[in-house]
């Protein structure tokens, strides 16, 4: 029988880290302990628990990690709640990788990079950021602006503080929506913070988060003089097949699962505003 992409493989969850009250990060390997497949930064995979459901998730680990794949998953429904209850050693089903990726080896090379993330939106960007860190010589300055509702909702705070913030030529700006005891950092919404920081307009911007955050950040960047062709984002639509056939995830004539999820803003603005 020929293989079919709709038939998943079995993988094992070897490690589960609780990042926030509703986000956990899962480390996944094959049954014989290997990385399930290679991927590019920005790509996704379909995870499922038979009888519970199947859904698309961004691969949050960097392609340069050769031992496993990682997924940061927010609890919001049937499958994701189930995943939040499992323990290490649990087998799950996986298929992928799906979608295009960020142009890390072309358009991003020799650029100053500005990453803007809100909430779980950091998940897909973490793969890109860590890829760029691993190939540091290919890129110039890296800035990360990352915000969440509260201190507790900042995903993977430890890696950011203990590694990213200490790196040379890399600045991390964290913000939370409202003041909170024990928080000495910035308070305020991501879009305002980005405008306040006033980045110069030579940077290539990679942005991911809730639609409302993206919308206001873009407005801010436009005022700062950024062009649409410098800005990249990843889109999210309901998905079933992951390969451009079930007809579910299109924005205009593009299937987000297959032609996306990464879009450059000038390309996105040629498509109907239906996302």
């Amino acid at each position: 029988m020929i293989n079919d992409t709709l038939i998943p493989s079995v993988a094992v969850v070897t490690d589960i880290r609780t990042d926030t009250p509703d986000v956990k990060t899962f480390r996944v390997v094959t049954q014989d302990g290997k990385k399930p497949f290679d991927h590019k930064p920005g790509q996704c995979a379909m995870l499922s628990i038979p009888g519970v459901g199947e859904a698309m998730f961004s691969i949050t680990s960097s392609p340069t990690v050769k031992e496993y794949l990682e997924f940061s998953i927010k609890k919001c429904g049937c499958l994701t709640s189930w995943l939040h209850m499992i323990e290490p050693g649990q087998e799950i089903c996986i298929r992928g990788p799906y979608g295009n990726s960020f142009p890390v080896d072309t358009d991003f090379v020799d650029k100053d990079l500005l990453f803007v993330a809100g909430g779980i939106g950091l998940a897909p960007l973490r793969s890109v950021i860590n890829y760029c860190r691993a190939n540091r010589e290919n890129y110039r300055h890296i800035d990360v602006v990352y915000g969440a509702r509260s201190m507790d909702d900042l995903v993977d705070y430890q890696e950011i503080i203990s590694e990213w913030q200490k790196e040379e030529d890399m600045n991390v700006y964290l913000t939370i929506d409202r003041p909170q005891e024990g928080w000495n950092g910035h308070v305020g919404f991501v879009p305002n913070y980005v405008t306040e920081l006033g980045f110069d307009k030579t940077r290539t911007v990679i942005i991911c988060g809730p639609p409302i955050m993206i919308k206001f950040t873009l407005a801010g960047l436009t005022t700062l003089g950024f062009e649409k062709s410098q800005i990249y984002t990843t889109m999210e639509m309901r998905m079933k097949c992951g390969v451009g056939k079930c007809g579910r995830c299109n924005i205009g004539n593009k299937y987000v699962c297959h032609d996306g999820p990464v879009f450059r803003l000038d390309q996105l603005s040629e498509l109907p505003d239906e996302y």
Partner: protein
Amino acid sequence: MYRISLDSIDNLFAAISAVEKLYIPADREDGQSYFTEWKEGVKLSDNLNTFRSAKGLFFPQVQDLVSFRTEGKKIEVIDTRKETEDFVVFGVRACDAASFGILDRVFLSDPVDSYYKTNRDHGTVMTLACNRPDETCFCTSFGIDPSDPAGDISCWKDKENLYLKSLTEKGEKLVYALKDLLTECDENAADTVKAEVKAVMNELPLSNLKPDDFTGEQLSVFNSEKWKELYRSCIGCGTCTFVCPTCQCYDIKDFNTGKGIERFRCWDSCMYSDFTMMASGTPRLTQLERFRQRFMHKLVYFPMNNDGVYGCVGCGRCLRKCPVSMNIVKVMKSLGGDAK
């Protein structure tokens, strides 16, 4: 070209079904025809076309994909795909034959859908030219000739005979297997029938409908004010998508049979409100967006991605079946011209 007397057509069906499963359009009590497995007594329908197209033979409404057995933390994936039997489908009209080409573009493009491909590989399509296209037909708008259908074997029917001409290797093989029943005849034997069909077609109200009137930039068509009027009567029942030979949207679901878990896919409809529902809401909030999606897909998005080939074959099913008489023709007529 070959011919066989219509009096012996049951012998032809018997001979085919002796070797492979055969499906032909046959009438049910409701007076409508459905592709039915042939056995003694099943009669070829006289209807213009079947209620549903033959799409389901290649892309079934419900299809098992894979099974799972789970125990504790363990999962076993069981590939339940079986060796598919060869089959023949007889009586496919030109429009529906063209729809397979459209489905092929979806399911046979990389990565190939093995379920669909297996059915395509095992199926032999015997098409049948129309004799009486009716006022809901507009296949010619999409360059389809109802008097000259594609397929593995094309057939024509006049008052006395059925004429057959094989177009592919598969068709050749089948004709060879049936040759004891067939009489070789002149290549022009079906020309009179063809001419008659063409004459009927030219008289039909939709024969002048042109999809190229419709080609605008996707944004201008999408943003046309006309959708606000057009969608109003649509009740989102999804009938048009289920009877459509080219609609390909599907859902994937799991079902616990008690013995294991079956993952299956089934037809779905972009006309339904939960089709694109996400935790953060849906980008297609009202029936306007859903209605627009169906027609944008067939008339704008699909051709953009497929060398200008439209995602409609003008079979007229959605015209005949929509409970509120809304349909793709009204959309084409309304948006043709000044939507640009």
